[in-house]
């Protein structure tokens, strides 16, 4: 499996009134084509920052991000991103929210609509096209976020704590549906980087887990998850792995 994303010695420094603060220190990481990579770590350790650097939303202070072998400069439009806060525009309907990125790519109205409908359908949102975000429950909102990210048919899906703002039942439902979606061969995206602070979520979803430590943010360990799918959340192997990752964080 070749690496699709390579991070080489990534450092991020933010200026602060009381001096500079280093958020990420010398992070090197490869994301393999077709894998699900989970990034876990304590809150504030720089997980979101790392994800945004991968996407090119913010530049690293030092180091290089390579995508498919090429050094990247600016936003990488081969990535789609899902946000913890959903980040939907409240004045656009579900369909319009999903179409935003398609319009930006200059597709004509008919194609935009068709493509948006396809992904709205895939995430189970059909019937909600005309709804505004504020009419939807949290779970439905995040489905819109997911459909929007998928609609641009990215190579890599980046997810920043996508289920953290949801209640336990909703997040389980969405997680299962994400796994189903990922198993769908018709879906162009097969590489996922998911940031989470729930270890069980990481163990359930990921092929590999990267554990970050804080102050400054750095990689402590990278763990392969060899459990067979579908994964049994109640199995002893599952619990053992959860415990192991947990011990690395604290």
């Amino acid at each position, binding site marked *: 499996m070749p690496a699709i994303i390579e991070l080489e010695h990534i450092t991020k420094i933010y200026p602060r009134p009381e001096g500079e603060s280093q958020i990420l220190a010398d992070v090197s990481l490869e994301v393999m084509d077709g894998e699900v990579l989970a990034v876990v770590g304590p809150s504030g350790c720089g997980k979101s920052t790392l994800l945004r650097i991968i996407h090119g939303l913010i530049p690293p202070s030092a180091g290089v991000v390579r995508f498919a072998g090429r050094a990247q400069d600016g936003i990488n439009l081969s990535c789609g991103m899902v946000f913890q806060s959903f980040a939907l525009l409240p004045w656009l309907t579900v369909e319009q929210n999903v179409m935003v990125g398609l319009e930006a790519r200059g597709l004509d109205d008919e194609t935009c609509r068709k493509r948006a*409908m*396809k992904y709205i*359908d*895939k*995430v*189970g949102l*059909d*019937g*909600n096209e*005309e*709804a*505004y975000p504020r*009419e*939807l*429950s949290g*779970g*439905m909102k995040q489905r819109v976020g997911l459909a929007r990210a998928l609609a641009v048919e990215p190579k890599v899906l980046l997810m920043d704590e996508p289920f953290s703002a949801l*209640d*336990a*039942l*909703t*997040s*389980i*439902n*969405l997680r*299962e*549906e994400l796994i*189903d979606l990922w198993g769908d061969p018709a879906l162009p995206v097969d590489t996922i980087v998911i940031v989470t602070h729930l270890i069980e979520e990481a163990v359930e979803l990921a092929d590999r887990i990267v554990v970050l430590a804080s102050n400054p943010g750095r990689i402590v360990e990278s763990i392969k998850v060899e459990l067979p799918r579908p994964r*049994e*959340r*109640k199995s002893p192997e599952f619990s053992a792995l959860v415990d192991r990752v947990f011990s690395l964080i604290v």
Partner: protein
Amino acid sequence: MPIEPLPSTGISKVLGLCEILDDHQGKEDVYRLAQDLHMPFGELLLVIKGAEMLGMVETPGGDAVLTPLGKRALESSMNEKKALLRQAMLKLKVFQHVLKLLENAQENEVPAEVILEELAVLLPQEQPRQLFTTLLNWGRYGEIFGYSRDTDQFYLQKPEKTP
């Protein structure tokens, strides 16, 4: 038979509940479930009530038990799952009532206010706004009816598209 009101809960939660029950071999004590999930007991009861009305869960003696229908929903694809839920919703009196109202309306749509008034008459003990929201959210999921805020119209969804 009196019309049963919809509990104010969402379909995602109902499906999540089925998923959890499946993890527990299809059966779990409701009180333990609330503790495990760190969920307010009252809220969990609403979810269970919703799941029960849709025939996905049964509640004999303080337990929540996954029904074969619930199990089937978990194993189906997205569109099959939606079809299953649609069938289940259409068995409910509230849905049948609103459906008939829409079918008889001109162009199969009515102002949202009409639905609100109808709900207030059908279920005088319930909060019509809240009921309206739940009905709409379920109905949208099952692609039974829709609502446009721009025109303030409630309408029947036409089962046109087959993916």
